[in-house]
């Protein structure tokens, strides 16, 4: 394993595989904050050169957190498909990049290979890919998952309807949900972030969403994004919901900062299989976002793309229905501006896909980032081309509970019209029955939820 190279006659030497991975990363404010970033553009390129000659085996044998010390590492390593790994272990990351991009390599072949790659290897190869590489290779992979409906079919761009309310007011949640439905949002999930994380509140919002789904016979799934333990207790008390949500992170220590353990996730998965209202088999909904590990000092001097990848390595163990990278929520200390956000979103969606996950992206920004809605819209357009499974639908992109801006109901409709993509089939038929979406665009009743109240 060679950890040094020369560029323009200057020698660049790296201390470890982890150091190479970090310094090969495209610039992010979070990696600078963590003190792991390259100090110059040339040093970054030198790291990429070294990385391109490391093999899949080198990455496998050098996890970011040691196997003995971390349950997430153990889960990822133990889940590796031995046959797929054997085939790939001698391949360098530079060769792997070319193979992923090759016209001879199908999406199916990529997904089979992905099962033999650790999260560090997937992170590594993404650092050798430009933005268009990520879109080009990523768009080949077809990944489906089934809860009540199936996400990820060809030509589909799904949408999570996110009708949040600052005090979880039932009528307020219903109002935003109905508005969203009238613009075609909600086929991925009707999912509320509760303002109050209690069992009673979870039960009450579940009831609102289940009633909506049942009253109008909407072919979709429901979820309240409270803490996993809150949802388990609510389910035990007789509540009804389809998907079990949890935010996850890429190390055992970072999970602990979320109050989460792997056995807890296994228990939740089993409980929702048995007692949840979904058909399944995919009943988990995970959210991630680069640098959540750093924010809890649980990144082990690893760059944020690699820690994010480890979230996907964790996620794939539980065969989730949805994984959503909330890419712009962490703030400018981790992802500074539009350029870094665009890069992070493309990395996350590609890396999630290569892990075999149905990957969505909350294309979003906070008001302390030097960004605006124009930047958000441009990124959303890129992600449609990258095969992103779903994005958020928020009233005019303004989330009045989480205090950030995401994609609006109108944006999802426009993205679908421009790209000629559709909502999930059964949902599209439901929309068409109400005149909300007809012939591949907004229909005669679009934007008028009062037709649902007649």
């Amino acid at each position: 394993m060679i950890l040094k190279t020369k560029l323009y006659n200057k020698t660049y030497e790296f201390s470890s595989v982890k150091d190479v991975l970090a310094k090969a990363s495209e610039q992010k404010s979070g990696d600078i904050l963590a003190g792991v970033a390259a100090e110059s553009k040339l040093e970054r390129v030198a790291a990429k050169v070294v990385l391109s000659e490391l093999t899949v085996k080198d990455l496998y044998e050098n996890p970011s957190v040691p196997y003995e010390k971390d349950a997430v590492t153990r889960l990822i390593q133990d889940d590796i498909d031995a046959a797929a790994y054997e085939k790939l272990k001698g391949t360098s990351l530079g060769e792997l990049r070319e193979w992923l991009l090759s016209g001879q390599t199908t999406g199916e072949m990529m997904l089979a290979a992905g099962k033999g790659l650790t999260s560090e290897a997937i992170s590594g190869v993404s650092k050798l890919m430009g933005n268009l590489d990520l879109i080009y290779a990523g768009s080949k992979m077809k990944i489906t998952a089934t809860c009540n409906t199936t996400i990820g079919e060809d030509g589909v761009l799904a949408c999570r309807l996110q009708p949040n309310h600052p005090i979880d007011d039932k009528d307020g949640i219903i109002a935003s949900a109905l508005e969203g439905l009238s613009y075609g949002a909600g086929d991925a999930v009707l999912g509320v972030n509760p303002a109050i994380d209690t069992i009673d509140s979870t039960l009450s919002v579940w009831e609102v969403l289940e009633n909506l789904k049942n009253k109008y016979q909407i072919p979709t799934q429901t979820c309240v994004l409270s803490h996993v333990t809150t949802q388990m207790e609510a389910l035990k008390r007789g509540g009804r919901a389809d998907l079990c949500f949890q935010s996850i992170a890429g190390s055992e220590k970072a999970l602990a900062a979320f109050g989460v353990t792997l056995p807890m996730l296994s228990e939740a998965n089993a409980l929702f299989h048995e007692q949840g209202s979904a058909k399944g088999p995919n009943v988990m909904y995970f959210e991630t976002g680069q640098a959540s590990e750093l924010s809890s000092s649980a990144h082990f001097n690893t760059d944020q793309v690699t820690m994010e990848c480890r979230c996907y390595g964790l996620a794939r163990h539980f065969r989730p229905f949805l994984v959503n990278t909330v890419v712009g929520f962490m703030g400018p200390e981790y992802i500074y501006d539009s350029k870094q956000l665009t890069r992070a979103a493309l990395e996350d969606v590609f890396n999630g896909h290569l892990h075999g996950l149905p990957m969505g992206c909350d294309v979003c920004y906070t008001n302390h980032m030097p960004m605006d809605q124009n930047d958000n819209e441009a990124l959303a357009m890129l992600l449609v081309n990258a095969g992103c499974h779903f994005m958020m639908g928020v009233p005019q992109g303004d989330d009045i509970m989480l205090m950030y801006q995401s994609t609006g109901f109108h944006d999802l409709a426009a993205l679908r019209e421009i790209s000629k993509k559709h909502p999930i089939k059964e949902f599209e038929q439901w929309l068409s029955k109400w005149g909300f979406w007809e012939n591949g665009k907004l229909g005669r009743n679009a934007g008028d939820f009062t037709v649902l109240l007649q």
Partner: protein
Amino acid sequence: MKDITESSIQKTGCEEGILEPGLMWKAKQSTTARIGIGHTGARYKTNSMLRFLADQAQASDSVFTEVEDAVIKKMNILEIHTKCRNKEDMIVRPDWGRIVEEDQQKLLLDNCKINPDVQIYFGDGLCSPAIGANIPDLFQVISKGLAFEGKVVGTPFFVRYCRVNTARTIGPLLGAKVTCVLIGERPGLSTAESMSAYIAYRPHPKMQESEYTVVSNISRYGIPPVEAAAHIVDLILEILEKKQSGIRVDL
């Protein structure tokens, strides 16, 4: 003269093509979300687009506003600051925003009650207008509520360029059983004055983030300060009794 931000979001809508406008206006009463705004093709009407731009510009601007000295003087409390030198540091150096250096620690030790049951202090966080808008009502009701229950409340003070994790230093420094940080939240479009309460039982440098009990969305647009204060008093009393905070407190 015209001001497009004068009318509240709930009173701003578009009836065009709506079968039952009365039902739309009724639904808008239940939320400040931007619903009932109409559309042209799959895009926004000009009015709703312009209103969004104005509100986002205001939120973005409010991040970099300082809490005015007059606000702190009026409250007649001590002010200290973190390692950050300005708002720019505050944005990109969250690690500095949790560091209270020795000279500032000394100010606290010289001016504050030691070993109170509950230490409450205020931080600007990412939204300076939140301090002036919420603290007067919020603090008064919390401290009275706790005093009524016989709890000793520490000396309040203001931390400029403050992050939540100053509690890891300040809690042990003053020897409080419970520390409660009232801090400005990232501003949203509907309000540039929202704050959160982060409450921890005996916070310390190695604590987990999950050990904070959090009440968010405190503002006249979300959970009103007086109502939030009553909730916070109940939480603090429960935390004091159970000797633990965070998601492990079963509410």
